[in-house]
């Protein structure tokens, strides 16, 4: 499911004629599923191992219970960083856009640099605006 768009792109890149395109597409799709499974299979296994280890430790570890008295603390709370949280969303996304750009930057050269210059100028203006409007103050 996840890698379906990727297969589609690969199919377009490799085939030109219609029949060929279809065959390559389905073959690539199979290969992609296979590659993705084997690449991320270890991540799945690691999750299983970590969970299993935790359960094992939880089952074997004997600890003396110590009674603690503390009031419940789940309440509506006015946290001090709402504006930060909003600007953070914008900047986190922007940082993610930088990653694919960074991979191809050296091959694209000056034009990619100018594109990013405009992008960074807009973001810097955003920080300057938030700063000026006291958005970066702890409330």
């Amino acid at each position, binding site marked *: 499911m996840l890698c379906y768009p990727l297969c589609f792109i690969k199919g377009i890149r490799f085939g030109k004629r219609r029949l060929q395109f279809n065959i390559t597409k389905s073959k690539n799709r199979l290969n992609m599923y296979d590659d993705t499974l084997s*690449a991320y299979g*270890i991540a799945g296994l690691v999750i299983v191992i970590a969970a299993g280890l935790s359960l094992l430790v939880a089952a074997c570890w004997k*600890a003396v219970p110590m009674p603690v008295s*503390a009031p419940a603390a*789940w309440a509506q709370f006015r946290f001090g*960083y709402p504006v930060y949280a909003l600007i953070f969303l914008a900047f986190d996304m922007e940082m993610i856009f930088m990653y694919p750009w960074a*991979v191809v930057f050296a091959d694209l050269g000056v034009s990619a*640099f100018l594109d*990013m210059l405009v992008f*960074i100028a807009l973001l810097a203006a955003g920080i300057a605006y938030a700063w000026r409007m006291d958005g970066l103050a702890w409330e």
Partner: protein
Amino acid sequence: MGVAVKAALLAVAMLMLAWLTAWLERRLVRGEPGPALAVALDGSPLLPNRDRWLYPAGPIVALVGFLLGAVVIPFGPGLIGQDLDIGVFYFIVVLDFVVLGIALSGWGANTPDSVEAFYRIVAQLVAYVVPLGMALVGAIMMAKSLSTTRIVAAQSGLWFIVLQPLGFALYLVSGLMQCYRAPFLEPFATGIGGGILGVAGGWPALLWRIALSGLLFLVAAMGAVLFLGGWLGPWLPGPVWMLVKTYALMALMLGLGRLAQPLSVAQMLALSWKVLIPVGLVNVLLVGLLILFGIGPA
């Protein structure tokens, strides 16, 4: 080698390295508060209002985050859990599971101190993620790849610390912020009883110790991969170089961190958004100019 054997070996190696990191850190920081502080391993606090699922889920999620992050750390050519094409990106994403774990446990323990730790840990995430990501972008630009092994291979001529000193400094500060070591240990401050560590005991305490030491190890190891040439080096075999660089970087980070006054979360956010992020943007542009002028790996 089968993928199951690989995963099991990875888990064993990482648990040993986390233990070594914890041992070294306790020698280095000598009883300072923070994630290295002693937690009650043999006494388990009975919290009256804790959530039945969230509270024990926290340390397990954190351990999962640590072991997942370790998958893409290379210790030599071919000596890596899995060389993912999106390695660095995967790394910063899965490492945030540790934050999720601390947040779950802090909220789930439902004591005033632990809920306060929950708020602080989330605010600290907002402070470090963007500058940390920008510190990594420079290395990716020069290596033209997100794969950790290709980033190391791109440094065979010259380490990136020489080409990107600004990015390295940025990584030192935001990396310390990511692993909650001094001066960024507000979520584990003594004022709130050590945060989630104050309400942990027994097996959750053991898992916290592993996950938080492992976090420090992974941050230092990724720094060695990105800026210090990873496993590359003369005479000694690759894995030895990788470990030497990782622990040297860890000692440097802990040492530099202790020179500064502990920062509150509000100060951390101000530092991040008023200093680190502008510096990060400048670093991206500087590295771009270097590449345009033909400086860097061919």
